[in-house]
């Protein structure tokens, strides 16, 4: 991890690059800094805090936020008195660990790397663009990023929403959407794809803080096209947040408030007063985009984002350099996370030959055997944490108190238990006093438990013979004003930990071997891409397809919105898949049974046409679910009843044909036909782009064609917005309709008639177009069967539910099972390809390692006590506890490799047959008893 580093140069070619990096000095020795924060308290100079968007003041010597990684302070040279004027240096003697070093110099480093991933993020919209909304002129006009810091409980206002002008709580608030996006005035024609979501989020959070505040969101289109995103908008409307479709002209100061001028669709100009106005600013290309492009020679698009191609969305114009995140185009967190995993898999494939060569594995001394009946010899280390703990808690008294406890063989105090020399001391004391349990009373196990467990392993002790007490967060910090009580509480916690430590045992470090093969279910573009990527990484897969041939929905598509030809790409994909020695394709096949767990699945696949199906069993380590989706066929708008009503997919096919009249003279397109609260409860994300793609094609073939699009929100997010603008310039008419006033299509002789309310003219219109094209949405292809077979949860809309919507977007809750493509949710081809590559990255991880590590704290079942009720199996969210027949009786058994050690099974077992490693009933009860046995403190 090289922070405070500037990227200066890149030489060489794919597989053999040399990057030059300039490491700017932090002026603080990272190894010595304990992040105690004393320096910031003493530093006399003010510094505007960029982390808090300038809403707070910090000091030149600071850390951005408590959880920052690395947890090392730094000095911002721009305002440090010493670095600017050679005075002050107060921080130097204040620092207890002598970490401050003004002699640090910038250091240039050369990195030899085989590949580069560009993930520089996004930039900020130029404040000039915001001026017309009085930003910078009136303190109560803020950007959404500033507002985010305001609503943050740990932020400078502790979550209190107020006006900067006079500190009053706003009664009326407005959000203005598309500030710096979809705005050719500032050369940002694209949609930033995230602002609608964050505005809704911030509005909801504000309502939580103050239910009385009146909030209006001014928008052009609400683009909540992501999976289950529309539901949040509905939730916002339900709690009274108002959505007004309007273009805001300006914001001007008005008495002590702000006046917002806006124009609605019907041409009316209106004014509204507000106390606080939040600008939903878009995502700009990163500030140093051009510099990165100059250094790496990667091409940029016209908006200075990284230029890529729809069929290879992360590959830059330079071999060996891929892109991920917002630099590829504005996007939200899950899309960024997905792209990152995909970028990792592309890179891993390109560097397959040198995999593992750069990584050294650490070795440990042989583990000392600690038998259950060995006398416990406990060492207790109590930490001062500089003065972080010791300024409140009487550390010596806590250590002495521990020393008097039974089985405590050794006790001491540490100035910093986490320092490198303290680790050596701990190791030495373990050996010297033959300690077989270690208790450390210091800070949070969340951050430091792994470090101390590592020290135990280095000393030859099992890492589970360790107990940590958090006397910093839970004592010195929260009871800073009551030092005596904080000391008593510290003693209580230590007593409880020592009591538990008497009962803790070594737990085995289990690993489970992995069969290095994947099963990929579904051979559409998602399944094919995933299998190909795994093949490029050197892994075999069995790719099963229920249809006659591979290709999936791509067979129905002819060109993309960007103008790329689909069929030739599909052909090359199919050729690659069929030609790969790593991919075994089975068509007319379905999965009938799967047993086992991550690393060790055995699946029965039935294949063949008709009644007689051949069955074969495949052993594999992972599963990629890519079962896809299909066009929804709503029984509406005369679809299937009139030849003049077609779906966008059918229109696309017609346009790709040769018929002379394939591009009719007049078309009415109806968006959301059957979607968003109709047959389907959700937005299918692709239909607006699909409509535009067809519009541009129709116009290309027949420029005189008259096209009217009836829509609810045009969701041409990202760079697709350019196509929307282009279509409007060509004279295509876009008219929004309300959900309670949908268009009607009726048969009129040989023609069809469309009746709709024109919200612009404010009147009812009847037309008889040559063709009606419906944007019908996407439904998943039978997710029920696989969901039951593999115990995979699905959403209310029957798409597979990922393990975590933000951070684990391609993993499913069952370990070793991954999802991509339409089975996960509606998405366009480029996003499907990226998601498939991401799924391949995640699936390859256990295959590369060759084993799966089992955390020692997983559950285990005492089968004598188990009555086979099955409660645990039904409650386990991970499918990690199964019922087995043992001597003819039903007994529960933990699938260790899948267990996440959440403890639900143990908490519910009526006979206490299940226990958790490191948290047995015996251990917990002894801890609770020790809590009550206060004695003499």
């Amino acid at each position, binding site marked *: 991890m090289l922070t405070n580093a500037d990227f200066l140069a890149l030489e060489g070619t794919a597989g053999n690059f040399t990057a030059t990096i300039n490491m700017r000095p932090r002026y603080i020795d990272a190894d010595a800094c304990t992040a105690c924060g004393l320096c910031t308290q003493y530093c006399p100079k003010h510094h505007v805090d960029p982390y808090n968007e300038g809403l707070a003041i910090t000091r030149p010597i600071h850390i951005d936020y408590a959880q920052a990684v690395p947890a090392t302070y730094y000095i911002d040279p721009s305002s440090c008195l010493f670095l600017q004027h050679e005075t002050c240096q107060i921080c130097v003697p204040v620092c207890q660990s002598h970490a401050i070093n003004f002699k640090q110099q910038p250091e240039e480093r050369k990195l030899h790397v085989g590949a580069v991933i560009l993930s520089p993020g996004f930039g900020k919209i130029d404040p000039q663009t915001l001026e017309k909304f009085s930003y910078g002129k009136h303190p109560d006009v803020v950007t959404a990023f500033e507002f985010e810091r305001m609503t943050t409980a740990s932020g400078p206002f502790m979550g209190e929403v107020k006006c900067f002008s006079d500190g009053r709580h706003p009664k009326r608030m407005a959000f203005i959407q598309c500030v710096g996006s979809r705005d050719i005035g500032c050369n940002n024609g694209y949609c930033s794809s995230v602002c609608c979501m964050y505005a809704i989020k911030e509005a909801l959070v504000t309502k939580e803080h103050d239910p009385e505040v009146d909030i209006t969101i001014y928008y052009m289109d609400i683009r909540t096209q992501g999976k289950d995103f529309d539901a949040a908008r509905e939730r916002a409307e339900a709690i009274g947040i108002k959505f007004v479709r309007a273009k805001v002209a300006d914001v001007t100061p008005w008495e002590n408030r702000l006046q917002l001028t806006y124009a609605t669709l019907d041409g009316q100009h209106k004014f509204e007063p507000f106390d606080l106005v939040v600008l939903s600013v878009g995502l700009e290309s990163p500030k140093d985009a051009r510099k990165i492009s100059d250094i790496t020679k990667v091409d940029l698009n016209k908006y200075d984002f990284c230029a890529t191609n729809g069929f290879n969305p992360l590959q830059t114009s330079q071999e060996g350099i891929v892109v991920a995140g917002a630099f590829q185009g504005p996007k939200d967190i899950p899309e960024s996370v997905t792209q990152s995993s995909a970028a990792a898999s592309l890179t891993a494939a390109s*560097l397959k030959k040198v995999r593992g060569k750069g990584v050294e594995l650490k070795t440990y001394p042989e583990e000392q055997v600690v038998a259950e009946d060995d006398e416990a010899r406990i060492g207790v280390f109590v930490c001062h944490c500089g003065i972080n703990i010791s300024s409140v808690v009487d550390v010596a008294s806590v250590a002495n108190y521990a020393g008097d406890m039974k089985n405590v063989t050794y006790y001491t105090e540490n100035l910093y238990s986490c320092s490198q020399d303290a680790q050596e001391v701990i190791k030495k004391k373990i050996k010297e006093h033959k300690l077989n349990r270690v208790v450390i009373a210091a800070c949070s196990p969340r951050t430091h438990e792994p470090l101390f467990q590592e020290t135990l392993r280095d000393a030859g002790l099992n890492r589970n013979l360790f107990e940590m007490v958090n006397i910093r967060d839970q004592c010195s910090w929260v009871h800073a004003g009551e030092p005596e009580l904080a000391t008593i509480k510290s003693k209580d916690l230590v007593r409880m930990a020592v009591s538990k430590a008497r009962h803790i045992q070594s737990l085995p470090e289990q690993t489970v071997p992995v069969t290095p093969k994947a099963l990929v279910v579904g051979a559409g573009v998602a399944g094919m891409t995933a299998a190909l990527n795994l093949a490029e990484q050197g892994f075999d897969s069995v790719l099963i397809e229920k249809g006659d041939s591979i290709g999936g929905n791509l067979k129905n598509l002819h060109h993309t919105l960007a103008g790329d030809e689909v069929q030739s790409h599909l052909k090359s994909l199919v050729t690659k898949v069929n030609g790969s020695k790593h991919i075994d394709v089975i068509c007319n096949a379905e999965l009938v049974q799967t047993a086992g767990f991550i690393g060790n699945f055995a699946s029965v696949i039935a294949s063949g046409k008709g009644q007689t199906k051949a069955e074969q069993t495949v052993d594999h380590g992972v599963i990629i679910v890519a079962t896809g989706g299909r066009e929804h066929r709503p029984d509406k708008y005369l679809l299937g009843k009139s030849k003049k009503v077609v779906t966008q997919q059918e229109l696309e096919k017609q346009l790709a044909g040769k018929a002379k009249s394939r591009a009719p003279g007049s078309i009415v397109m109806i968006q959301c036909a059957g979607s968003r609260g109709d047959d389907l409860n959700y937005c299918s994300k692709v239909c607006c782009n699909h409509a535009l793609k067809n519009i541009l094609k129709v116009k290309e073939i027949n420029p005189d064609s008259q096209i009217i699009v009836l829509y609810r929100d045009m969701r041409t997010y990202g760079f697709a917005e350019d196509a929307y603008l282009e279509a409007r310039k060509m004279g295509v008419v876009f008219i929004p309709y309300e959900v309670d006033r949908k268009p009607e299509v009726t048969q009129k002789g040989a023609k069809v008639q469309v009746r709709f309310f024109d919200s612009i003219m404010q009147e009812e219109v009847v037309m008889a177009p040559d063709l009606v094209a419906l944007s019908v949405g996407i439904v998943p292809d039978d997710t029920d069967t696989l969901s039951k077979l593999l115990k995979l949860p699905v959403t209310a809309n029957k798409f597979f539910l990922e393990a975590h919507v933000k951070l684990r977007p391609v993993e499913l809750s069952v370990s070793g099972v991954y999802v991509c493509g339409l089975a996960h949710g509606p998405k366009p081809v480029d996003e499907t390809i990226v998601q498939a590559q991401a799924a391949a990255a995640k699936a390859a991880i256990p295959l590369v390692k060759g084993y799966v590590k089992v955390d020692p704290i997983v559950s285990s079942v005492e089968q004598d006590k188990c009555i086979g009720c099955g409660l645990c199996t039904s409650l386990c969210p991970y499918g990690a506890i199964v019922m087995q027949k043992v001597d003819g009786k039903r007994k529960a058994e933990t699938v260790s490799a899948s267990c996440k050690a959440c403890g639900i099974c143990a908490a519910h077992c009526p006979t206490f047959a299940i226990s958790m490693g490191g948290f047995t009933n015996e251990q917990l009860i002894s801890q609770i008893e020790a809590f009550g046995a206060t004695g003499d403190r």
Partner: protein
Amino acid sequence: MGKAMKNREGAVMILGGGIAGIQAALDLTDLGFYVYLVEKSPAVGGVMAQLDKTFPTNDCSL
């Protein structure tokens, strides 16, 4: 991540330590590669570390 070596084979540079860069780094190390995560600011985390909650579940962002 092991110790830095000269002319290390199988290394990748990731430019930018926001959520995208961090995730790519984690996955690449799991896939058997050494990663240099190059970040211009003093800490990794990027913009996501500045966010309070995340849409649509309003989970904590940090």
